């Protein structure tokens, strides 16, 4: 093995131009793959963090209350007992908050729009302060009743600024329209698609608008240490809640607002609990990430084909040039496996060395891009939920890039190396002529 390694490294060194060109190509493709993966991971992280802060918990314990079989309200009544039960039954929870949820009209002096009305307790919402980038005003204003926070796109549409008052209008769950005037205390920077339709108000204001008692909430949102385990945690919690005597809706992977019609048609009254995860509530995120993931896979696939063809071509050339060497090695007693090993080792060394260079290049580029804050267009912001690009180079991304490209170069070398190993030793004698 030592001898093969020595020969492989020196052969790479002897053919400097070929090694440099192919090595550079492999390094660049690796860097590109790592950066694309970093972009995808960054998007995933940002989307998860943003969406789960603004719209949903990792796990949500919510539900529907039906005073009659034909009317439905997305609330949990007598929520304090349920919240205490959930806290007790769910270890590994970072944070539990309650929120009010509704849909209504926001009316300014000059314009109006439909909006999702979210009631929050700003004192308890630690993540909310990190995610929302306040452009004007202060989130602390949400501690006061009859206040609200909106995003730049909403402010632009309503033609309002901090200090202005808008009217929230929504039908109560008894079917009567109600209004509440709220003062804009802060305007946040846009965060993708949520920015256009989310309005945040104190929980008490939502209750006032919908005329709910203080024990009623929209949802109990849980933030766990391992969001990837949300499905598993939700399933356990659903079973526990049902076992404890609450009536529970069967799991359906849909956001709560898409379940209204179904629940409305069902012939029951009273309270039913619905346990969902962030993937249920934010299905568009799954689609977006799946689409981006597919695009990246296609790009990576094309790049891998290019690299593989390059490697096959380079090794085929090397084999043509080194026919006599191969024949000589076979003539003096090297088995076919040795020849195969020699060429695969050369490809592996080149592939591994170049991918490591590529990853270092990608890490440097990512640090630079993240450091200087490269701005992205409004359309792209909608998906990345940030104003600047964020490339997240974690260990998995780096290992994946090195592994995939190094494996591709080795696999691509197998064909030429196999052909080299089948060269008959008599070529040594013939090529010596």
């Amino acid at each position, binding site marked *: 093995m*030592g*001898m093969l390694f*020595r*020969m492989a490294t*020196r*052969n790479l*060194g*002897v053919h400097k131009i070929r090694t440099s060109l192919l090595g550079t190509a492999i390094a660049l493709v690796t860097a590109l793959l790592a950066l694309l993966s970093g972009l995808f991971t960054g998007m995933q992280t940002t989307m998860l963090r943003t969406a789960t802060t603004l719209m949903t918990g990792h796990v949500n314990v919510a539900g529907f209350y039906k005073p009659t079989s034909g009317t439905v309200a997305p609330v949990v009544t007598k929520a304090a007992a349920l919240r205490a039960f959930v806290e007790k039954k769910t270890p590994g929870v970072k944070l539990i908050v309650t929120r009010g949820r509704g849909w209504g009209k926001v009316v300014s002096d000059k314009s109006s729009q439909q909006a999702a009305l979210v009631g929050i307790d700003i004192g308890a919402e630690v993540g909310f302060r990190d995610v929302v980038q306040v452009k004007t005003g202060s989130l602390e204003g949400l501690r006061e009743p009859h206040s609200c926070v909106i995003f730049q796109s909403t402010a632009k549409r309503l033609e309002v600024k901090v200090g202005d008052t808008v009217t929230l209008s929504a039908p109560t769950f008894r079917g009567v329209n109600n209004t509440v005037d709220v003062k804009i205390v802060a305007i946040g920077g846009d965060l993708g698609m949520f920015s256009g339709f989310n309005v945040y108000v104190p929980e008490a204001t939502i209750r006032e608008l919908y005329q709910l008692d203080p024990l009623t909430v929209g949802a109990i949102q849980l933030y766990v240490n391992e969001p990837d385990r949300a499905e598993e945690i939700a399933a356990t919690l659903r079973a526990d809640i049902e076992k404890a005597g609450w009536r529970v809706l069967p799991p359906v992977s849909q956001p709560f607002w898409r379940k209204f019609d179904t629940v409305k048609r069902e012939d029951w009254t009273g309270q039913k609990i619905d346990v969902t995860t962030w993937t249920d509530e934010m299905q568009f995120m799954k689609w977006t990430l799946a689409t981006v993931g597919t695009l990246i896979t296609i790009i990576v696939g094309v790049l891998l084909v290019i690299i593989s063809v390059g490697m096959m071509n380079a090794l085929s050339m090397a084999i043509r040039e*080194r026919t*006599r*060497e191969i*024949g*000589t*090695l*076979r*003539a*003096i*007693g*090297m*088995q*076919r496996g*040795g020849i195969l090993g020699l060429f695969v080792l050369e490809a592996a060394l080149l592939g591994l060395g170049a991918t490591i260079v590529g990853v270092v290049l990608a890490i440097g580029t990512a640090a630079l891009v993240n450091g200087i804050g490269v701005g992205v267009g409004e359309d792209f912001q909608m998906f990345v939920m940030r104003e600047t690009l964020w490339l997240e180079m974690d260990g998995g991304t780096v290992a994946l890039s090195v592994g995939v490209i190094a494996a591709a170069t080795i696999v691509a070398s197998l064909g030429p190396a196999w052909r080299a190993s089948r060269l*008959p*030793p*008599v070529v*040594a*004698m013939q090529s*010596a*002529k």
Partner: protein
Amino acid sequence: MPDAIVTLQGVDKDYPLGAVVVRALQGVDLEIDAGEFTVIAGPSGSGKTTLLNLIGCVDVATRGTVTIDGANTHKLSERDLTRLRLHKLGFIFQSFNLVGVLDAFQNIELPLLLQRDLGAAARTERVRGLLEQVGLTAFAHHRPGELSGGQRQRVAIARALVSQPRIVLADEPTANLDSVTGAQILELMQALNRTGTTFLFSTHDPRVVERARRVVRMVDGRIDSDSAMSPAAAVSPAAAVSPAAAVSPAAALATLTPAAADHPAAATSV
């Protein structure tokens, strides 16, 4: 009487060339005993290299049998043929065919590494001994590109001998060497032959032929003549006047002048 180490019986070798079949060897019968210093001579195209290839197990006969040290090569697998080449045969090529990325020491060590029989210390000792025998101790860590043609051929000879093969096959070993270096290489091989190694050459170089103890002449793929040479013709002048040189390759090399040994040749390494 020594036993035959190489036996060919009724050997034909055909090469298909499009629709035509070219018969490179026809009806060759040959026996070579251990310790011989035999030359296969003949003009270009007479079949001497083909014959050497068959004996070297790098090619297979179309018909007939080739037996090397008791093994019928037709019955051996590709793996076993490779093993036979590794353990029982040594090759010296016209263009030296050294591995360009390895230095002289590593080129000579290569067959031992493939054999995996010796530990590092024993390998080093044997390679150093051979480097000394062929007069290249000072050039142990020179790559082929840094050696003259004569030096390269001496590295090739050391590589052929390092695994202590039963037979050394040399295909036109002097073709790419000037006359002085060629003579020195032949002196060396003769000296090594006296230690018991069987040498079999293919050549049309008269300088080689005149040193042989047996000459097999090929014409049109057939053995035209097979004659033993007189002992006088087979012994070099240097060996004749020096009893020590008759048993020691190092002594044979002592007659080499540094200028002659370093004479550049046009041939290349692999």
